[in-house]
């Protein structure tokens, strides 16, 4: 398979951003294991969903634009939908955890 030769100003930042995005997602996943309690664990995966996916999406825009020779930006919609829907699950999880802890505290008494 022959890949079209991409200019260096695309491949270098693209590669760096992809590696950075992968590392950030991995650190986020690692946080799930390393942090001690449920609310603290809520924070770590956010690194992957915001900055991590942001890095991957910017790379996608950069590489697709260079390959097709025209600006490609519909990745912005992915960012928009991820960012707008994230609070719903985060709030539901957090409220469920707070409620559970309150019940546990009451039953222990």
């Amino acid at each position, binding site marked *: 398979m022959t890949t079209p030769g991409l200019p260096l100003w695309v491949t270098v930042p693209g590669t760096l951003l992809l590696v950075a995005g992968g590392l950030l997602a991995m650190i986020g996943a690692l946080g799930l294991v*390393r*942090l001690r309690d449920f609310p603290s664990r809520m924070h770590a995966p*956010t*690194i992957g969903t*915001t900055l991590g996916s942001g890095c991957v999406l910017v790379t996608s825009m950069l590489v697709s634009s260079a390959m097709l020779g025209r600006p490609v930006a519909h990745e912005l919609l992915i960012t928009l939908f991820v*960012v707008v829907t994230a609070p719903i699950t985060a709030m539901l999880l957090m409220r469920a955890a707070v409620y559970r802890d309150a019940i546990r505290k009451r039953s222990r008494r």
Partner: protein
Amino acid sequence: MKKPSSSPPPVLTTALAASWLLLNQTLALGQIAFAALLALALARTTSALRPLRPRLRRMRTVPGLLLMVLTDITRSSFNVARIVLGLVGNRPVHAGFLDIPLELRDPHGLAALATIITATPGTVWVGLAPDGHSLTLHVLDLRDGIGWIHLIKTRYEQPLIRIFE
């Protein structure tokens, strides 16, 4: 009570049309016409589900706020990554709940604040007090509670009040 006006909400209509064009990656005349029709129809039918409309003032505050949120997301990502990897030296990291007195009342402004707080690693929205005067967050690195309150109020709440109220 005022009857909901039958004119389509302008911001929602424009946003729907813009996302249709972006999704199809086109600026062809036919597609623009179709996007306008589709957006008008969708905006009109869905406005029955949410009759409450945002009043957008001071739109020139928006770019500055977006830029601030982007830099904060980047900075907090590295802060949280450092905590996860244990690169904070011997300093103990205390996570905890934090109550913030809130002046923002507009539901759309609150939704925007929730989005910002959830998108920023290190802070998670826990809940709004029933009277709406206080917001509870969970903060991963609760070293300086007053500092966090100040940060949320000046960097996010003030611009959102300027935009929505």
